[in-house]
Each structure stands twice: as C-alpha cells, then as structure tokens.
C-alpha cells in the first residue's frame, strides 16, 4: 500500500476539520463520464461539494452561475477546450482558481495553462491526495 494511506489519513484529519465548516463547492468540467464520476466521488469523500459538467458550454450555460471555490477543468474537451474556458473567464475578470486535469500530458498545453495563471496542472494518474492538497491550499 506504500505511502498513499499515510497521505490519505492526513487528508482525512483535515477533511474532518473542514467538515464542520460549510462545504467547499468545486466545479468539475470533464467530458469522460467515468473520469467525471470518479473525481466527483473523491471530492465528495473528501468532504467537498462537487458539481459536474460534461462540457465547457454546459458550464457556461449553468445560470445563474453558482459560486465555486475553484474549477477543475479537463484540457481536452469536445467543443470549447479547458484552456479556452480559462481564457474566457480571465477575460471576464473571474478570479476563481483553476486546476487542469489531463489524460494527455502535452507540454504545450501545460505551458499555456501555466501562462494563463492556473493554480495547478495534474495528470489523471497523479495521486488524488496531491490534487486535494492543492485545492485546500487555494480555498
């Protein structure tokens, strides 16, 4: 089981602490159904309140826009990409922190995301604890 349980148990303690407060609302924009469901499940298990969208367009159409502590965007999306959405939001002055999650670690996409001021860039196979830690740091 390696180091993951340790990392997760430390996560758990903090999760418990957070649970007493109001839940952290996180938007997930991800076109792969299974990836979307599992990520939402992890956030829920970690005591957050995820809202899922299958595309950037769906996310934009969800009006009035709920308040989110942060956004988790897939880089490759059908239609508008995660990077496009990040640009649009930045242009509109939305300051919500953005995390990218990708199945395809393309250095160019990573550079572009970093240049756009994203709060973090994760691969789908990176440990969930790292993502959860990063989310907690920004909220």
């Amino acid at each position, binding site marked *: 089981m390696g180091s993951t349980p340790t990392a997760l148990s430390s*996560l758990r303690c903090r999760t418990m602490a957070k649970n007493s407060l109001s839940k952290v609302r996180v938007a997930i924009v991800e076109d792969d159904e*299974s990836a979307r469901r*599992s990520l939402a499940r992890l956030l829920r298990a970690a005591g957050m309140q995820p809202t899922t969208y299958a595309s950037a367009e769906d996310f934009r159409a969800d009006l009035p826009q709920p308040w989110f502590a942060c956004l988790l965007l897939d880089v490759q999306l059908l239609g508008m990409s995660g990077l496009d959405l990040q640009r649009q939001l930045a242009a509109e002055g939305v300051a919500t922190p953005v995390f990218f*999650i990708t199945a*395809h670690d393309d250095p160019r996409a990573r550079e572009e995301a970093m240049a756009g001021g994203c709060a973090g860039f994760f691969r789908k196979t990176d440990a969930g604890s790292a993502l959860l830690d990063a989310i907690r740091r920004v909220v």
Partner: protein
Amino acid sequence: MNWITIAWPMVASACLTLGLIELRIGLTQPPRAARLLFALSAFAVAGIAGLELALTRADSLADWWPLMRWLDIAVGVMMVSLTAFIWVYFGTGNTWLALAVPGLYAVGLAFDYLSGSGPGSGMTYQQITGFRTVETFGGVTFNLAEGVPNPWNVFPYLAVLVLIVFVVDASARLWRRGGRWRAAVVGGAVVVFFLVGGGQAALIETGAVQMPYLISWAYLAILVAMASELHADVLAAAQLASRLQDSEMVLQRLRSQLAHASRVSLLGQLASALAHELNQPLGAILRNAEAAELFLAQEPPDLDELRAILVDIRQDDLRASGVIERLRSLLKRRSLAPCALSVGDLLSTVAALTRGDATARKTRLEIAAAPGLPLVMGDAVHIQQVLLNLVLNAMDAVGHLPAERRQVTVGAQRRDERDLEMTVSDGGHGIAPEQLGQLFEPFFTTKPHGMGIGLAISRTIIEAHGGRIWAENNTSAGATFRFTLPLVEESTAP
C-alpha cells in the same frame, strides 16, 4: 607499296569502321533512320575509295570503264543517302530540293548506260582519248584517263550544287530553331567538302590538274563531322542514363526513408492516442480507489457508494484491457490476415483513435453507419489504418473552417450484394478536378508538409482486400473518400 596504295585503303577502312559502328548503334538506338542512312553513306564512300584506288592503276579502256561506271553509282548512292540523312537528322530540309538531288544525278547517270557511243562515253567523258602515267609526290606514279568532257556533264554538278543549297537551307533553318552546333558542324562540313571534292573532280575531268580523285578523302571528312555529332548523341544518352540511374537510387533511398517516417508517425499517432485512452480508465480507477478508502474510513461506511465504486472500477478495468488488446493488435506487424469484421467495431476503434485529434482540432467526428450492417472480410489493423488516414486527412481539410462547421463524417452502408462501402466526408474546399485521378499516386500531396504516401498506402491496402478506393467532390462542399470491402459470404459467415 606506295603512299597511294596505303592511304586509300586506310580511307576505305576508316569509312567502313564508322559505317559499321553507326549500323550497330542504329539497329537499337534512335535516331535509327539517321544512323542507318549515315552507315549507308559511309559504306558508299568506302566503295568510292576502293574504286578510286583501282582507277589509279587502270591503263586500258576495258579496265577503266566498268570501274568508272561503278564509281558513278557509288557517288550517287553516297549523295542520295547523305541528302536523306540531312533530311531525317535535321528535320528542316526543303522537300523539292531533296528530291531534286537524286533526280538530277539519275539523269546524269543515265548517260553511262544509255549513250550509244561505246565504252568510255558516259556521264563524265564523251570520249576517252588515252591513258597517261603521272608522277606525283614522292615519285609515286599513277594512271589517269584523258578524254573529251561530256557537255551533258552538267547534271551531276547540278545535283551537287542542289545538294549544297539543300544543306545550306536546312542548316540555316535548324540554326534559327536553336540547333546551332549541329547545323554548323554537319551542315558546314557537308558544304565545304562538297565544294572541295566536287571542285577537285571537276579540275581533274577538265584536265586542269593531274592527280587521283580525292572524292573519298573529302567525304571522309564529312563522315567524321557527322559521326562526331551522332556519337555526341550516344555519349549524351549514356550520360543521361547514368544520371537517371543515380536519381533512381536517390529516389529509392528517399522512398524507403519516407515509408519509415510514415510508419513512425503512424505509430506515434497510435501511441499518443492509446496513452490518452489508457489514462482515462486508469485515472478513474485511481480516483475511485482513493475515494473508497476515504468512504471506508467513515463511520458507518457508505456501502452503497462502495458498491457503486467497485462496479465502476471493474468497468474501467475492462475498458483499459480493451485498449491494451487494441494496442497489441495494432502493433503486431504481420501480413494481411482477413477475417470477418464488425463494421461497428471498426468505426468505434477509429473514433477512439482520432478522438484526441478531434478535440485538439475542435472537429466533430460523426459516425453514420446504417443499422444492421453485415460483416466484412478484412484485416482489422489495415482497415483501421486506412480509416485513420482518411479521417486525419479530412480533419486537415476542414481545419480552416470556423469551429462550428468543422465536421468529419464517417459512414458505412451496403453497396450491393457483394460489397460494403465506407465513406469519409468533409466540408472543406474539395479537390481540384484534375487532381482527383492523381490523389492515390505515391508522393502526390497538396499539403505543404505532406509526404504524399498515406493515400497511396491506403490504395495498396484496399486493393489487396479486393476493394476499390476513390474520391469525389460533394455537391454541396468538400470531398468524400469512398472505399469498398467485400462482405462475408453468407455460407461462410459465422
């Protein structure tokens, strides 16, 4: 042995050699007619040299007259073949002048045979008065006929003059058309040496000089000039052949490099698409496992959630092993192994392989397969390569369009009793009508960085399956690529 008996046979053998070389080349290599005519004129001049030598020894009318008549015939053959050679080789000669040469000479030659005044009376002389032995350079002696020139002797000289005019005229035209070197060397040589040879003969026959005929010497010079031109052609052809061989080797090397490059890029494409495909289920399994641990730590554990997680993990695991199975079959290099294939499986594999590209290029990939399609006979890996290639091309074709119009449609429908037709359509610029036929040629490409081998390979694959592949422009916009695959015969269907 003296210099006359050495020099004339040398001229004759030189002419024979040149003639035989051109005859040999002319039997296989162009310009064949020119080479054969050249050979004929060379043999005629060899004959002329031999006859000239024999005439230097003739001291009686009985010896001299048959030789003289043969000489006149040989000169005629030489002149006619030379005229024909220039006609063929330059391609610029005047028809009437060319026909006048044999015509005029034939009239002159007729005197040798039709004159009723007995031996010696013919084209050249009206009457032979006697033979003299003359001493020339180096104290060598030879015999010379003396006689009254025939006043009708004008015809052969006219023939020579017309021949000169013909050659000058043909050379001038060739010069204007750009064949300057050939016109100058061959045309110039013919004119100069006809003037020398004909002039010297005229001087002998009018008794102005006393020397053997030098016709063959003059003509040997013409032959050398003509041969140098013809041989230049042979040399140029040989050089061209060796250059062609070089460029063919370069092409061969290039071709194998390109084939390798295309394999590498196709593999790169597959590897990247499959990595993406694998990371989706692997990432989902990881998230689910992490979530399960967190749920298990809760009191009481949410068992419904845990059950749902296990179901999802199992599904993602199956999805991942499906990807690996595909990877294995795609990477296995083997010869064509056709088996019964489901069209739906083919299409969904291709959709999965190109999904990464589709999203990156913001292109919608629509699969429009008619329901209930029968199985086709084919090698899945190869057919997928063809579809992949066509779909990526179609995505290139719509790349310039606004995102909402970037769509590629892959379709499949039954064509007739024996064939299924698959189509890949785009809404791009379409294909220029004159390019429709060339599209599938190796190295034909319209892309700035294209290699022009994708479609050529596709055609090879489809034809190996017994199908056809072609392209046509849509009535609205863009192009459709179609290929056929044989259906599995009813009796052999599993």
